[in-house]
């Protein structure tokens, strides 16, 4: 009908075999190949097309095409990888390690070279020539 303390075997085995605890802060395990950690923009390749901002389900990316600023709120990002897949130039990547903890709010702001829009470029040209 029932057994009395069948757990004993397991318990005693644990006592003499290796413990399963990973000594985390002292030994850091190699992250998996696929792990989606901190998001990171290879800003030089970014064309400020805003695709990532549109596709992001948390709406945490803002792209300022004028100034060439790509901003992401790391406290809102849910690390889903959608933006990375949508980016036409493949300049977005997830690092394999997680984003470090912090003591206050912060934004990720990256400054790149904004692509010259045709209109503006033309205007500039005019200026230069004029």
């Amino acid at each position, binding site marked *: 009908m029932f057994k009395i*303390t*069948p*757990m*004993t075997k397991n*318990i*005693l085995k*644990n*006592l003499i*075999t290796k*413990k*399963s*605890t990973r*000594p985390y802060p002292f030994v850091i395990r190699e992250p998996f190949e696929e792990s989606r950690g901190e998001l990171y923009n290879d800003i030089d390749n970014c064309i400020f097309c805003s695709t990532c901002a549109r596709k992001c389900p948390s709406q945490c990316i803002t792209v300022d095409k004028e100034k060439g600023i790509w901003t992401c709120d790391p406290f809102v990002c849910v690390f889903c990888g959608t933006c990375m897949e949508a980016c036409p130039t493949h300049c977005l990547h997830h690092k394999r390690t997680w984003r470090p903890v912090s003591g206050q709010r912060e934004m990720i702001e990256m400054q790149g070279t904004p692509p010259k829009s045709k209109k503006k470029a033309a205007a500039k040209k005019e200026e230069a020539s004029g």
Partner: protein
Amino acid sequence: MTSAQVFLALIAALFLAPLAVGVLTGVDRRITARMQSRLGPPILQPFYDIGKLLGKEPMLANHWLAFCSFLYLAGAVTSVVLFFLQADLLLIFFVQAVGSVFLVIGALTVPSPYSQIGAHRELLQIIAYEPLLILVIVGIFLATGSFKIEAVYAMEQPLLFKLPLLFLVLGIALTIKLRKSPFDISASHHAHQEIVRGVYTEYSGPYLAIVEIAHWFEIVLILCLLSLFWSTGVVGLVLLLGITYFVEILVDNTTSRMTWRWMLGTAWITGITFSLINLLWLYYG
């Protein structure tokens, strides 16, 4: 006893014994962790816990908690001191009951449902283990002819041979007192249980530290009682204590927490049956 002996006994009772129990609890937690395939806390963890608690901001839901926590400590300490002074066993038992009663009264003074339920469960634990302890003491009396501890030390043979079943009965009481599974019903180590931390719920910060220290003294007392069962040699005594404690940890890790109804029934029925058999055997055997 000479006054030097008394002095030594006081030192042992007041300082060495609780320190030893602190380390023992640390070892206990370590072994438990290993049994669960974990690394576990440092051996000195119980002391850090106490130190941390002492340094916390005091906060109370009722002043009487402070009052009662000190009397709990006083009761526990006095009983241990009396033991080291080799007083009357039954008296020691009644003195430790003072501590337990104040722990409960303290918990009852707060109109908090968890604390109240914990206190009632603690009372039920008290009525479960108190008769058993009295019977163990009576067993010792029947074996030695006296309630005084010195009579035990005068024995030539370890008490264990005469009181094997009563040793098991003491084991039940020990499990209840150590708050170990299956009897961790009124306050468990951590709080994954239905009444949060039961009697301890409302004691916090320094007051919780006092309660924990008092609990150490209670453990000292009950281990001392255990030690009486092998009073003839130090090696046997240490072995007996070690094995008993290990078995306690084993039981803790291989059983669920039971309900108080189960506890009351089991403790009384098995405890009293075992005691009765052992006592009758002593009396007529």
